[in-house]
């Protein structure tokens, strides 16, 4: 048998026989997707609100019914006193209090002006914002429906439509993100650990004093993980489509090719880490701290890059994941072709070549 193939065969044995790692490698993507999909969500559903209605007329009743009927809210209680607001929030269940002034309906007709107060629990500012916006628009739409002759005296609330993600479904955000993180984890961390393991065990010495060329050693380590990563990418996308009904607007072929590119980028990063790590532990730490964390925080996966301080925005440019997320979101959600993402693709290719060059330079053919 060809020496190179013999080496790959050994690598496959190692991977298959390390049951624990295998479990994590194959199970992790599934667990992550399911977690993100079902448990972590930015959407609001059945948010509990309390009503403080000083007016209690037909107008307020209609508005209250509208709120109650929507899937976003459920009425927790009808309050009597303003003083109770604080304790209601403290109990924790109610996220917003809607308070109608006395004679709300009459004032609306007589003065063309009525006040409704929306008090939200802003300990989670994102949700609070969303809640108040929703309530606001509900009140507005009531007005529009019932009193077309009245000109509203509030400021114009812009009609927003969330383009490409009208329901702001978070699955569109996290599937690309999870995929990026998993691919980077498997490719970079597992590769670097695999190479440093040989160093630690002393078998690297024997491999060096053999006809195997260093390039064959690296390639042999990398090939099985390419297959594993591709497999994981496929699983993630399948889960996204069938469990979370994520649509794929763009070409699957392009998606596949770009994914393989990113996998290779991550693998070369793994090789680079292994050239500077003497032990598996170092490799793992370097992968986690140097790759995972920046990838999760600065790639735009969870936190939008544009909201970050400028210095971090600049730094985010050197994180391969950032470019891949742009690419993958483009293909999945916007259905763009290569003509729109060629710039990012080129950047990824450039990064890969750069990492390969450094790894080759730093790869030690001796023990020092």
């Amino acid at each position: 048998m060809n020496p190179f193939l013999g080496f790959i065969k050994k690598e496959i044995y190692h991977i298959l026989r390390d049951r624990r790692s295998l479990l994590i490698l194959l199970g992790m993507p599934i667990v992550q997707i399911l977690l993100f999909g079902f448990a972590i969500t930015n959407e609001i559903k059945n948010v509990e609100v309390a009503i403080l209605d000083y007016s209690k007329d037909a107008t307020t009743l209609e508005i209250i019914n509208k709120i109650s009927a929507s899937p976003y809210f459920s009425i927790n209680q009808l309050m009597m006193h303003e003083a109770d607001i604080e304790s209601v929030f403290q109990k924790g269940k109610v996220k917003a209090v809607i308070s109608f002034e006395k004679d709300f309906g009459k004032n609306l007709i007589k003065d063309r002006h009525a006040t409704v107060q929306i008090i939200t629990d802003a300990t989670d500012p994102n949700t609070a914002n969303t809640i108040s916006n929703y309530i606001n628009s509900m009140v507005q739409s009531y007005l529009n429906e019932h009193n077309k002759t009245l000109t509203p005296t509030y400021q114009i609330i812009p009609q927003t439509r969330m383009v490409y993600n009208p329901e702001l479904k978070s699955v569109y955000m996290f599937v690309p993100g999870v995929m990026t993180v998993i691919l980077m984890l498997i490719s970079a961390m597992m590769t670097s650990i695999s190479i440093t393991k040989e160093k630690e065990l002393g078998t690297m010495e024997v491999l060096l004093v053999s006809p195997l060329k260093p390039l064959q050693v690296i390639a042999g380590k990398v090939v099985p993980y390419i297959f594993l990563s591709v497999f994981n990418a496929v699983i993630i996308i399948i889960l996204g489509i069938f469990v979370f009904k994520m649509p794929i607007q763009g070409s699957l072929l392009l998606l596949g090719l770009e994914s393989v590119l990113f996998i290779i980028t991550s693998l070369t990063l793994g090789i680079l880490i292994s050239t500077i790590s003497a032990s598996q532990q170092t490799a793992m730490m370097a992968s986690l701290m140097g790759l995972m964390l920046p990838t999760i925080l600065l790639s735009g996966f969870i936190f939008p890059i544009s909201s970050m301080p400028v210095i971090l925005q600049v730094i985010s440019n050197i994180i391969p994941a950032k470019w891949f997320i742009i690419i993958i979101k483009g293909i999945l959600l916007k259905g763009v072709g290569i003509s729109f993402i060629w710039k990012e693709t080129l950047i990824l290719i450039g990064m890969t070549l750069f990492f390969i060059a450094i790894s080759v330079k730093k790869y030690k053919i001796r023990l020092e």
Partner: protein
Amino acid sequence: MGITLDNISKSYNGIKALENISFEVNDGELFGLIGPDGAGKTTVFRILTTLLIADEGNANVAGLDVVADYKTIRQSVGYMPGKFSLYQDLTVEENLKFFATIFGTTIAENYDLIKEIYVQIEPFKTRRAGKLSGGMKQKLALCCALIHKPKILFLDEPTTGVDPVSRKEFWEMLKRLQQKGITILVSTPYMDEAALCDRIALIQNGKILQIDTPDAIVKQYPKTIFCVNANNKYQLIEALKTYGHQHSVYPFGEFVHYTDQRNIFDVEDLKAFLKSQNLSKITIEQVQPTIEDTFMELAR
């Protein structure tokens, strides 16, 4: 041919691991590099197997320079580094097959070379290497180093930590391999194994103390050694140390090896002294020096 080292020096972090090491291993010789941990044995091996570059000096393996011709050397020597370096999660057979494959050969091709050794572990061929005993790992590692029929074999501490029975068997195997024309460089911290080599180099703290055949080295021991025994070994040692004429006092198994500063002296005098120190059952006999005695004397 064979192996040569010429004024090899190597330092790490300011510590001199090897200082002006020179010796030669002839074709077909079984040569032992004898010394304790930290003497520099592994460094010598790594330089010869092209894994490290010496700071000074030259070395040749089979006529090839270890720095310039490293690629050719790596393809043709057999190397067994310390602690065996086997793949723990591969079976005996898989390990052997792997090493055969990366050297571009098969187990069948050179089987006759390893047969005697392999048959002893063949019953366990489907067992994972990690689950083998020390002696079996040793045999497997040797087979893996031999499978591509190298002309020169480098074995770095192959018997360390292995039980005495396996150690004895291992050396018997080495002797038989030598008869097949393979040049073997072995390192070991066990002084008794030195006697089994054709020639040895004693090494301590990065310096060579002596190079010669085991017999010749022992013959060069400068003093006469006396085996002394008494009823209480601890008190015997302490007493001998206070004797005043002692050159060396070392426990050696059930006896104490004593050498005197004087070239000739009266044994009865010593006996009387010891008696005066409240020791009894005193015996003093002359003995032949061993490699260990010689090593310790050279290392002082």
